[in-house]
């Protein structure tokens, strides 16, 4: 039902793939480095190159089924289209008399500069979406949390609390559906701000119960051991170096 949409299903194939085995922190680092790298230029090519490479890597090295990838990013690509069009139409370059005019539609003047800016922005959003989708579809949540705690020194309370909360999301989405249904069956319109109160009560109650259950199992009582030890592996270094090389190449090509 709603669960599949909200939480991607990282199956055994994706988990065993190259991208699935790379430490999630490495993938996060790559995403961050690429984001910064793309900020160095306004050119449209580097983000497009990175998008293409990300998608190919997701399919080839991440074991993602093409349909699964398309389902995840297609709606977001529509949003990109919206961003591009809005930037094209409302660009500050359009009224600028010095800008190169491409065409006019009634009162609307579209300039070369506006097209460049809109395309550059669209390509960047596109690459961020693609990187995010491939990350989500190849990263096992448990692996991510374990890495954050063991290698990233994130507080276990925060990390495991987040993991548990994340698992409650589909349940809360179902709860919202039932709350709306109840309103309808009592002769009221379905949407009402009061729904938020019901949802909040549910979320707080769930968190409360979970905290009790975690405490009852000795969470936070002292030093912990780990059931799934996580270590850096050679693969992490290989993928990190390759990703940096790709970024540099993409930036050089566009010069």
């Amino acid at each position, binding site marked *: 039902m709603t669960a599949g949409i909200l939480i991607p299903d990282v199956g055994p194939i994706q988990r065993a793939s190259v991208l699935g085995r790379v430490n999630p922190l490495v993938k996060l680092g790559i995403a961050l480095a690429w984001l910064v790298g793309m900020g160095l230029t306004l050119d449209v090519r580097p983000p497009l190159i990175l998008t293409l490479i990300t998608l190919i890597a997701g399919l080839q090295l991440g074991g993602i089924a093409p349909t699964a990838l398309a389902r995840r990013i297609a709606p977001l690509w529509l949003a990109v289209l919206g961003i591009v069009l809005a930037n094209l139409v409302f660009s500050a370059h359009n009224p600028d008399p010095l800008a190169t005019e491409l065409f006019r539609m009634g009162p609307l003047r579209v300039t070369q500069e506006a097209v460049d800016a809109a395309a550059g922005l669209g390509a960047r959003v596109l690459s961020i979406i693609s990187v995010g989708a491939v990350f989500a579809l190849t990263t096992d949540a448990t692996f991510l949390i374990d890495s954050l705690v063991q290698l990233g020194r994130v507080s276990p309370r925060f990390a495991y609390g987040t993991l548990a909360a994340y698992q409650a999301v589909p349940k809360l989405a179902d709860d919202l559906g039932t709350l709306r249904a109840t309103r309808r069956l009592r002769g009221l319109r379905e949407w009402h701000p009061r729904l938020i109160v019901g949802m909040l009560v549910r979320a707080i109650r769930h968190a409360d119960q979970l905290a009790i259950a975690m405490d*009852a199992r000795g969470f936070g009582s002292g030093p912990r051991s780990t*059931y799934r030890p996580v270590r850096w592996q050679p693969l992490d270094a290989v993928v990190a170096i390759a990703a940096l090389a790709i970024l540099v190449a993409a930036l050089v090509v566009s010069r």
Partner: protein
Amino acid sequence: MGAGIVLQDPASQLVMERVGDDVAFGLENLAWPLGTMRRRVPEALQSVGLAGFEERRSTRLSGGEQQRVAIAGVLAQAPGLLVLDEPTANLDPDGAAVVARILATLRDQRAATIVLVEHRASLAWPLADVVLALDQQGCPIAAGPPADVLRAARALERAGIWLPDDADGSQAPAQADKLGPVSRSHGTLPILELHDVRFAFEGGDPVLREVDLGVSPGDRVALMGPNGSGKTTLLRLAMGLLRPTAGEVQLGSRDPWRLAPAQIARLAGYVVQDPELGFLADTVREEVELGLDAEQLVFAHELCERLALPLESFADRSPYQLSGGEQRRLSLVTGLARRPLLLALDEPTYGQDRRGHEALVAALDELVEQGSAVLAATHDERFAQDATDRRIELAAGWIVGELGPRDGRAEYGIVVAGQGELETS
């Protein structure tokens, strides 16, 4: 040797995404060495009958399996004291039976002291070495070995406590014929009709398949079957909250999906499984009175009295702060108050003691006399026996059995007679 606790709602006590990690979670917190954990986790899972489940996702398990994972997580720590708070309340009879078997094994091993808080006496009684019966104020009524406590049967009943053996009601119908026929179908147009209804969530397996069902005014229908068999989905289709993938649903000869909220509220009352999801107001009074006319108000107040929620003491309390059993009764008041033609009830007796049960059955009977129909999804054998006379069995979305209208109902007198035997044996 610490203490371990298992709570009522299985879903809200699972921390980790995978079963093995969740069982190991408590061990990690006690800083057990990795090697010991790797040995202990499969052992604990095996002891609850879930061997090989380590890599499964805990959110994808059934409620019964989740509850067993929670028990395994506590058992893994080899606690000296194991506390279980109504561990089977959210489970179907099969799931509850498995949990009961596990508890029986644990008791026989004498590995830990087990404290079981339970409404279902039929489950708890045979497991107990010592029974402590509490009244509504939390004061002890009786304590001691089960047989001794049963001598106080009268006091227990007065406090609304279920007694063992009267829970499944299976021996009751023998004398029931003297109560007269209770098939009350008024033989008029059906209030609810399902024709060859199929339903599947998008991209999912079918939840309901080829379901044909007619409910006429005066009908009292129990929908039974394990968790996930499609009971709630059927109710939601009937209420127009879902749209069938194929087939036709008619509520009062109209498509409920297209009915406006005001129309549907006149035709049907829906009591959802989790009462908290039915609450729309900040106080019990507002909740009860929401959207009712003057005549319905009088009936709603009367219902509050009868279902042990007198407004004098409950009016200003928040619905969210009531106990589970009180919340259930409040949601029943709101569902029944309009005297709708069709009462769709999802687990109406959840968390009810004997008094709550009796009051509900009486209120439903009265509405049925006046021409309402009852369609109740339930695991509660006794409720099905007392409050319904037609039984639809669902399994994996198929209607696999239909029984009734029956010609008799259980009465409590018979059950109490049965207890005398227990006491002397």
